[in-house]
């Protein structure tokens, strides 16, 4: 879907290093390195992708590495190759076997 309509999407290829704050209206697909703040509706960290900094989005799918802060208002999936450290806020979480999780976990709506 993203390949057809790339409106409001950010793709960071492997080997690319991006520094700064990013507001992405739709999908952010990261195969390279992002340092800073990234906000998107949907965030995909591919197996080679690394994020240092703040990550916020509705749905977040991590096959690579996310450090420091992750906040997902809808669903957070850490795949078997994924590695997440730091403070994590979620409303729905799934971790595949082999996924790496190190840090503080917070449920955004704990009474549901």
């Amino acid at each position, binding site marked *: 879907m993203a390949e057809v309509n790339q409106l409001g999407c950010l793709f960071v290829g492997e080997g690319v290093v991006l520094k700064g704050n990013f507001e992405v209206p739709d999908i952010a697909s990261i195969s390279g390195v992002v340092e800073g703040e990234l906000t998107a509706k949907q965030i995909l960290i591919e197996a080679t992708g690394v994020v240092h900094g703040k990550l916020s989005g509705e749905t977040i799918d991590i096959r690579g590495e996310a450090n420091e802060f992750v906040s997902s208002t809808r*669903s957070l*999936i850490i795949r078997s190759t994924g590695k997440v450290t730091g403070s994590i806020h979620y409303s*729905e*979480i*799934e*971790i*595949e*076997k*082999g*996924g*790496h*999780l*190190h*840090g*503080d*976990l*917070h*449920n955004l709506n*704990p009474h549901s």
Partner: protein
Amino acid sequence: MSIFSKNSTPDNSEDKIADEQSENYSDAASVEEPVAATMSSYEVARNEAPSRPGISKPSIISEGFTFEGTITSDGVLNIAGTVRGKITAKSVLIDASGQVDGELNSDQLVIKGQLKGEVNCEDLNVGPLAHVDGTISYKYIHIQRGGKVSGKFIKN
């Protein structure tokens, strides 16, 4: 009749053995030894039989049952009731109705119910209806979609 026969048959057989032995050995003191040997081998066989299924059979805290204190087990522990305290076991399953409040140490841990406290395990599996809160240190983790987890997670 059957009760008597149960008790009397081993006695009779021992008597018979004793009789046979006393026939073989004229010395009365040497008779005691073989009798004791047959007794011990009989007991070993008796102890071995229930211990083997005991390894695979889980210990169960049933639904509606509340336990406070320390549980230590080398085997499998199924918790469908409530446990407050310290648990140490090889494998622990907290069922959907199960609740644990306290410290938990195990190699394998499956959580379908509720858990609050300090957890130390190798292999952690959190089910979709589970509620987990506390400090969790693990080697391998799997959280199924819908599982509610909060607290500190430490990967060893």
